[in-house]
């Protein structure tokens, strides 16, 4: 950041943001088109608080209560062409970039995470292996299926410490005369009973190795004998989603069902999950946003005086956390396009940090909401009750975080030895909203190596801020915080350099799990600083340091590193923006999206 920009930023901190006028950011054509589609979905879904709206919160909560999928809303989304959002543009769909897809999906997730999964991203999670490694014919068929309102289901392989969703797997053995015979049983598969395609991560080698599984693309209508549908499973979270089981018994699968090479399943999972991880983080932020709105409603309804002091801390803290989560998710989503050979670690860190932070945020908001948080089913305050149940399913709990740690842990030593404090900073477009980016190409995504561009960005941010340390106020606090995270990265480098080599099957030093947690939080801080520095000034609130200071203080608090006292005006400024956004119906993420007109 230049000296001029730092001074300009300091000047904007004195502005009253409630009176701001929205200046329009310049955006590329693809981003503009995606934002238009998001606005169209927002308009189609209508006023979430209108009790007569069949797609409003009251209707969606009621469907959840009855354990039903909101059929009318699913139909609306299908007819609006949601399926095409999951098909790469080169196959006739509208998928160009993962960050833009997240923006399109947010209107859905803002209302109902389960709807977002059940009627939405599950199909992308399933078909991404096809986009990454499928044959031309598999891609064309899959593209047609999704654009024709079809659904795809993913049949995961079993991961370590699996929960019900990740437990059990299918085995495929070579069939005489070619193809495979598929066997096994899995009880909890989303949309198993109504999918038009199954993407199976089947075990093809009994050995525990990175080449143990292969991916198969199946058409349920073409399967002969040997497949049985198991009953629907009632779940605590995402009650309306249709989870059920499948059992295969020597079910013949044609040779051309194989996606990619034999034994490529684990690699394909690693390659495609990084997109899923960033998307989940980038969309559940929108769901938490609805709960934050309901909490602001609770403390401002019928009250002309300012928000009571006791609620200012939790409300501004959660708002800052949402911006931090969005920063981390947005940077990772953009990196998938811009730096596809080095986003895997960040993607794992995003999925490791964001659901955990949001869970903590929901608990803080439960305190603000008090008894209103138990008003199940009502559009004004019912979002908390639902998201508390849905969020663990979206994040997959411990099994989900452990799967992310399995990606981070084996890379820590190499990162410490080769990348941290050595690598060059990423291009500035990574952090700049509106900057054009290359299209997402699943084929280009690496699953290991490539260094750590975000740690490099942290070191760069801290260096640029160093000359305002000691001047006092919010800028100095930001500079001190940046330096504190660099100090933490330095400590991590020392600790990780001495880690024993990683060999599967034995965890020589459990400290790696602790270190991966600390590292993921450092990356969250780096993303906040990067996004703050990347502001072009069109949003004076995001360009001012207050939100970043608050967000970094909270991340630092979680790390247990020394953080400076919150400077004067920080909480007030973030609170004023929060109340302003609530009154205007704008989202509490980096985009401050306006509600449906």
């Amino acid at each position, binding site marked *: 950041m230049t000296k001029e920009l730092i001074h300009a930023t300091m000047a904007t901190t004195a502005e009253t943001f409630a009176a701001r006028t929205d200046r329009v950011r310049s955006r590329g054509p693809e981003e503009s088109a995606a934002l238009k589609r998001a606005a169209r979905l927002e308009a189609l879904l209508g006023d979430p608080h209108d009790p007569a709206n069949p797609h409003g919160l009251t209707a969606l909560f009621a469907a959840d209560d009855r354990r039903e999928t909101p059929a009318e809303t699913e139909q609306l989304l299908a007819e609006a062409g949601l399926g095409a959002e999951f098909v790469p543009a080169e196959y006739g769909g509208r998928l160009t970039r993962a960050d833009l897809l997240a923006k399109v999906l947010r209107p859905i997730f803002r209302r109902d995470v389960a709807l977002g999964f059940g009627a939405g991203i599950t199909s992308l999670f399933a078909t991404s292996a096809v986009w990454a490694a499928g044959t031309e014919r598999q891609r064309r068929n899959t593209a047609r299926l999704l654009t024709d309102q079809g659904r795809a289901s993913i049949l995961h392989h079993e991961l*370590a410490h699996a929960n*019900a969703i990740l437990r059990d797997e299918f085995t495929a053995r070579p069939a005489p005369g070619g193809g495979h015979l598929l066997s096994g049983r899995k009880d909890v598969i989303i949309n198993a009973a109504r999918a038009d395609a199954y993407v199976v991560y089947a075990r093809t080698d009994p050995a525990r190795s*990175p080449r143990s599984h292969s991916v198969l693309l199946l058409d349920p209508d073409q399967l002969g004998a040997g497949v049985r549908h198991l009953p629907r499973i009632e*779940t605590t979270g995402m009650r309306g989603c249709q989870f059920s089981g499948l059992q295969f018994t020597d079910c013949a699968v044609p040779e051309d069902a194989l996606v990619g090479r034999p034994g490529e399943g684990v690699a394909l999972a690693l390659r495609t999950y990084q997109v899923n991880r960033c998307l989940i983080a980038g969309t559940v932020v929108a769901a938490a946003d609805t709960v934050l709105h309901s909490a602001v409603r609770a403390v401002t309804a019928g009250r002309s005086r300012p928000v009571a002091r006791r609620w200012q801390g939790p409300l501004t*803290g959660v708002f800052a956390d949402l911006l931090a989560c969005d920063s981390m998710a947005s940077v990772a989503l953009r990196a998938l396009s811009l730096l596809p050979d080095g986003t895997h670690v960040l993607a794992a860190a995003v999925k490791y940090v964001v659901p955990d932070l949001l869970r*903590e945020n929901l608990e803080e908001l439960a305190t603000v909401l008090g*008894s209103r948080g138990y008003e199940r089913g009502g559009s004004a305050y019912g979002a908390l009750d639902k998201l508390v149940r849905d969020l663990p399913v979206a994040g997959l709990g411990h099994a989900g975080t452990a799967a992310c740690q*399995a990606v981070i842990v084996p890379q820590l030593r190499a990162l410490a030895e080769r990348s941290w404090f050595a690598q060059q900073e990423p291009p500035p477009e990574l952090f700049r909203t509106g900057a054009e980016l290359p299209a997402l190409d699943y084929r280009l995504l690496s699953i290991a190596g490539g260094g750590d561009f975000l740690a490099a960005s942290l070191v760069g941010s801290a260096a640029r801020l160093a000359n305002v340390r000691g001047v006092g106020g919010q800028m100095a606090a930001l500079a001190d915080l940046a330096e504190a995270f660099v100090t933490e990265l330095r400590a991590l480098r020392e600790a990780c350099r001495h880690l024993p080599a990683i060999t599967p099957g034995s965890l020589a030093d459990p400290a790696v799990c602790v270190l991966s947690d600390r590292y993921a939080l450092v990356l969250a801080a780096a993303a906040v600083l990067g996004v703050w520095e990347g502001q072009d000034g069109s949003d004076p609130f995001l360009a001012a340091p207050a939100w970043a200071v608050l967000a970094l203080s909270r991340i630092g608090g*979680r790390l247990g590193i020394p953080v400076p006292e919150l400077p004067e005006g920080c909480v007030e400024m973030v609170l004023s923006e929060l109340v302003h956004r609530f009154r205007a119906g704008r989202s509490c993420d980096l985009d401050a999206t306006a509600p449906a007109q």
Partner: protein
Amino acid sequence: MTLGDPTTKGTAMTENDPRITPPVHISGPRGPWQQVREGMAVRGNATVCTTWGEWLPTVVGDPHLRALLGRDWQRYRRSPDPVVRARFAASRLAVKYTAAAALALDPGDIDLAYRLGGRPYLRGFDQIDVSLTHTDELIAVGISRLGRIGVDTEPAGRRMSFELMQDHVCTFDEKQELAVLPEQEQSAAMLRLWTLKEAYTKAIGQGLRLSFTEFGFGVAGPALLAPDGRPAARGEWAFGTWSTLGRYLVSIACHDCGLDPSRDTRVQTMLDDGFLGAVAELVALEQQSEPLAER
């Protein structure tokens, strides 16, 4: 120091939820930990009751105390009162040893960290959630693999005035129920209610920040209720109150996210071999192609 029969399990006070493992007494680092592991395997949660005196030999004599306390060492050193200091160290050791029994690792490998609201957690190991409480000599530690857990304890004989406390602690329905009880029962019921409410608000990491009048518990076996008496959950929460070591009341609140997580909570097995192997293989390849010395 008489603490009653240390081998007995906690005695149920009322209709307790069978999904909660009753508290077990642990007499120091050597456990016995079998019941904790059993509770974790069968019900997914376990609560340990212990007294700080039972950990004193470790606090005073373990040459690795500093490493064992980790980031809590500074706070330990800063406490001027030796009793406060010893109790603080004992409580942290109790958490680490209890968690270590479930994670199957050395207690010294655990980084006991704190959420912004003060709730302790195990950094890097989210397969179990922990909660810690203490009163007088007693320390209670709850662990769960199903979701959040909160524990709270009070001396069983502590008198809690219904008259003075009802407006701060009770919902309307609770006041009605308690008002008709004879005075002694009233105080006992208030104490039970207090520990249940503490356990619940600690489970969600909020403690006293969440007002106790914003939620309530039913009479016939504790169930989470909104102040107007409607159910506030769909069965995800389980509660119970036990009398332990003859003179303490321990309440436990357990949340079940419903993911049906793995019974295996060991650290050794948590990182997926397939993922770990695939990534480690590629990292090794990259290192071979670009040896460090050449950079």
